[in-house]
């Protein structure tokens, strides 16, 4: 599915170890760039899952502890 989001992650967005499905359908650990708005145990939101709604919602939660305004920027 093409990502038509107006936003993307910046190069300051942190990296996390996430579980992703491999070719065999099993989960394997992999380092990905993303954010964890519901805790690391609830997965990593990666750029391919970013939508305008999600990005603007996260930007509305921007804070010192969760600097989404630093991590999520508008595409040029």
């Amino acid at each position, binding site marked *: 599915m093409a990502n038509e989001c107006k936003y993307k992650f910046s190069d300051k967005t942190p990296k996390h170890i996430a579980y992703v499905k491999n070719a065999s359908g099993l989960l394997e650990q992999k380092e990905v760039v993303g954010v964890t*708005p519901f805790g690391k*145990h609830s997965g990593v939101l990666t750029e391919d899952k970013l939508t305008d709604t999600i990005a603007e*919602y996260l930007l509305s939660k921007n804070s010192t502890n969760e600097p989404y305004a630093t991590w999520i920027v508008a595409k040029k």
Partner: protein
Amino acid sequence: MAISATVVDIRGKAVEPIIEELLFANDTIEKELVTFHEDIKASTIVTENDNTVTMQAFTSGAPSSSGTFGLTDREITPVKVMYYQTFTPETLRTSRFNRSMKPGAWNIESNEFGTVVLKAYGNAISEDVQSKFWNNIKSATQTAIAALTPGAGQGSVGAAEQTYAASLTAGEFDGVVSYMIYNNGALGTRYKVAGTTLSSTNIATEMGKVYAAIPTRAANQPGGMKVEIYAPYEVKQFINIYNVTATYRDLFSVTNLGQPNEAYYYAGVKINFVPLPSNCIIAALPSNIHWMTDLLSDINMFKVDRVASNQETWFVKHVMTIFAHVSLQSMNVLYLG
């Protein structure tokens, strides 16, 4: 997968006991925090009954029928899942585990490995199953939620809900939170509360939003049925920190603090701490949240054996079925921030 080990060849003593990783206890099962259904193999019907009645003026003539008997069936087939991995005891022959191996080149099984490491492996399975019961999503559900048009109203999916669904790694079944958001091919009818990032400074205010949102019918059930709050583990610490500076500790009351039987309440409503996502709180009657399985004790059983009789590679295998169902959805509150 073989044993992932950084082992040192044993030359002297080993410290007892083996230091195990810290795991959450499966309180959902052990404390019966939800309703359990066993002997659910496949295509089991769960029926909800919702009737409406209409008072009308008396007439001596033929009356008109008014009202409905609402019956909604949901066919449930628990998902069959498994945990499986192989290991090679030969890897442990020079380690501390050789102390519990019987003499002889054929005897490579370690009693200590079985009683400690494999037991801990079983506990890890239990923790993972509990976590996924609350916090999991199928790929199809994830796609469906992403396709919905978000909105602030109760009839729309929330931005926080879409963000939550998109964050998860897709798994084998929908957990409770995902099910409350979307089930049976449509948006769930949960009572949605827009939340925020929880902390010790706002936990009282945010818990108040959940409490205020509890439907009055659910909050005023007769007999022993009482709504309970389900919160992520970190909320316990938020509450304890809040109480340190609270003038009166009657908003969040805690009994037997620090003891195995400690209990937390908000305005008299019991709070259960379960592996929910952060910034998520559920308020529901325990009778509305269902853990459905073939046999509940399957969670405690796994088989250990050789992969083949002519090999020294062993396997550990665990099989179970599970389905997370939520009933009377409009009586349950989902706070997500």
